[in-house]
C-alpha cells in the first residue's frame, strides 16, 4: 500500500474514535468472554482445577476427543489432497459444480449434520435393521461421532489447497515428469513441498473444528459418561449440573487449543506471505 497522502488521511479525532470503537467492540465481544473462561476455571483454586481436568470422566473425554480427531482429520486431509489434485491440475466438465458441492457441509447446520447419520444408521434408519442384525452400533457410539465430525470438517483442507494449487499451475510438475520422475515422485518431491504450509494450515483448522465440534456430535452421541462424551460434551454435562468450576476448567483446555490454533494460523499466514514474496 502506498503511503496515504494528506487528502486521504482521516482526521486524528476520527481515527481515535474509530479505533476505540473497534477495540472496544472486540474487547467486549472477544476478550472479556475469553478472560472469563480462565477466571471461572481458577476461581476455586488450582486444586479444584487440577481435579476437574484429571478426573476419570474428563480424561476419557479428552482421549475420545483426540481419537475422533485422529481418525477424521487424516481422512479429510487425504480427501483434500485428492480433490485439489483433480480440480487444480486437470480441466473437466462439472468442475465448478464439484467445487460448490465440496463447500456444502459449511452451509449445513451442525444439528442437521448429526441428524443425517441418525436417519442413515439409527435403529429406524435406512441401514438400521441391517446394522442391528449384524450387531454393529454406529449411532450413539464412537463411529457415529466420527462420521458426524468427518461431515462437519469435510471442506477445510480442500478449500485451502485448491486455490493455492490452481495459482501454482502445472509447470513444475511437467518439468519433473520430463526429467524422468514418476508420477508419485513428482507429487512427493515437487507438489508436496509447494503446498506443505497450506496443507498444514488446513489441517490445523480442520483439527480445531474436529476437537471443538458440539452440535453435530451432540446429536449422535449417546451422552454416556466416560464412553461417548467428547470434551465439549463433557463441558455441557458439567455446566448443566451447576458444576461451573469444573465446566470452565475443561473449557479452558479447549480455549487453549483455540488459542494455539490461532497462534499457529497467524504464524503460517506469515510464512505463506514470505513464500509468496520470494517467488
Amino acid at each position: 500500500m502506498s503511503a496515504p497522502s494528506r487528502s486521504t488521511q482521516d482526521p486524528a479525532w476520527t481515527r481515535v474514535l474509530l479505533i476505540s470503537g473497534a477495540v472496544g467492540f472486540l474487547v467486549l465481544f472477544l476478550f472479556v468472554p475469553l478472560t472469563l473462561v480462565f477466571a471461572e476455571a481458577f476461581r476455586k483454586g488450582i486444586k479444584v482445577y487440577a481435579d476437574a481436568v484429571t478426573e476419570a470422566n474428563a480424561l476419557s473425554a479428552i482421549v475420545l476427543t483426540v481419537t475422533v480427531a485422529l481418525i477424521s482429520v487424516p481422512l479429510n486431509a487425504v480427501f483434500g489432497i485428492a480433490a485439489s489434485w483433480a480440480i487444480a491440475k486437470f480441466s473437466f466438465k462439472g468442475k465448478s459444480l464439484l467445487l460448490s458441492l465440496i463447500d456444502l457441509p459449511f452451509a449445513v447446520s451442525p444439528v442437521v449434520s448429526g441428524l443425517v447419520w441418525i436417519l442413515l444408521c439409527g435403529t429406524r434408519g435406512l441401514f438400521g435393521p441391517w446394522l442391528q442384525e449384524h450387531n454393529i452400533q454406529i449411532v450413539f457410539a464412537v463411529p457415529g461421532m466420527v462420521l458426524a465430525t468427518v461431515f462437519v470438517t469435510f471442506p477445510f483442507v480442500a478449500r485451502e489447497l485448491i486455490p493455492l494449487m490452481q495459482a501454482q499451475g502445472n509447470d513444475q510438475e511437467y518439468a519433473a515428469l520430463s526429467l524422468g520422475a514418476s508420477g508419485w515422485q513428482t507429487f512427493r518431491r515437487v507438489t508436496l513441498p509447494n503446498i506443505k504450509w497450506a496443507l498444514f494450515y488446513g489441517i490445523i483448522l480442520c483439527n480445531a473444528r474436529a476437537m471443538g465440534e458440539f452440535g453435530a456430535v451432540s446429536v449422535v452421541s449417546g451422552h454416556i459418561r466416560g464412553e461417548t462424551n467428547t470434551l465439549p460434551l463433557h463441558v455441557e454435562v458439567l455446566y448443566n449440573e451447576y458444576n461451573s468450576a469444573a465446566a470452565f476448567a475443561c473449557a479452558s483446555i479447549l480455549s487453549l487449543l483455540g488459542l494455539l490454533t490461532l497462534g499457529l494460523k497467524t504464524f503460517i499466514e506469515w510464512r505463506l506471505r514470505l513464500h509468496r514474496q520470494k517467488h
Partner: protein
Amino acid sequence: MQANKRRRILPGFGLSLGFTVAYLGLVVLFPLLLVFVKASGLGWRGFYEALATDRVWAACRLTFGLSLLAGLLNGVFGLLIAWVLARYQFPGRRFLDASVDLPFAMPTAVAGIALTTLYAPNGWIGSLLKPYGIKVAFAPAGILIALVFIGLPFVVRTLQPVLEDLEVAQEEAAASLGASRWKTFQRVVLPQLVPALITGTTLAFARAVGEYGSVVFIAGNMPGKTEILPLLIITKLEQYDYPGATALASMMLVVSFGLLLLINYLQRKTLVRNQA
C-alpha cells in the same frame, strides 16, 4: 484440446477424481439426499402438519429474525473493524487482526457457557445491566449476542482484502475535487464495498441460522419464546418424533442451499468487479 493434452501428461486424474467423487458422495451427498427422501415419504400433508404448528412458527420467526439482526449488526461493526485494521497503523494492530478469528477457533460450547455466565443476572456484565431491568441471558437479547459473536469474522474477513486493494488514487481524486472526507467515503469508498459487505453479512446470517452450540446455553430454551430451530430439531429427535425432525431439517437444508447459491453468486460478482 489443451485439456486433453494436460490429462495425458500428469498422472492420477482418474484416481484422484474417482476418490474425490466417491468420498463426497458417500460422506456428504448421499446422507443429505436421504433427508429429502425421508421428508418426501411424509407426503405433502404430513410435511405440512409437521411444520404448521405454533411452536415451529415461533422458532422460525425467532431464528430468522435474530439471525438477520445479527447479520446486520455484524455488517456495521465488521465494517468498522475491517476499516480500522486495513487503514490505520496503531500499536497492537496485528494482535487485534489475529484475534478477529477467535470465534472460529473457540469451540462453540465454550463460547456458549462463557457468554451465558457473563450475561447472567449475577455475571460480570449481567449484574451491571440488572439494575436497569435489562435481561440478556435466557432472553432473545442473549441469543442475539451469541449470534453476533460467531458471525463477526465472516464480515471482517470478507471486507478486509477488498479494502486493502482499493485504489487510494480515487479517493485522492475525490478530495482534490473538493469532496469532504465523509463525502468521499460515502460516494467513492462505500459503493465499492457494498458487494463484499452484502456477501459477508449473508455469510454471517447463514451461519447464525444453523448455529447451535453457542446459542443453546444462553437462550433459555422456552418453547415459543426462546427456542431456536436447531434446538427444536433436537427436541423432536429426543421425543422420537423423527418425521417432525426430518421435516424441519429438510426445510433448513433448503434454506441453507438457497443461501449457499446466493453467496456463490455474490462472490462471483465481487470477483468480476474487482478484476474489471
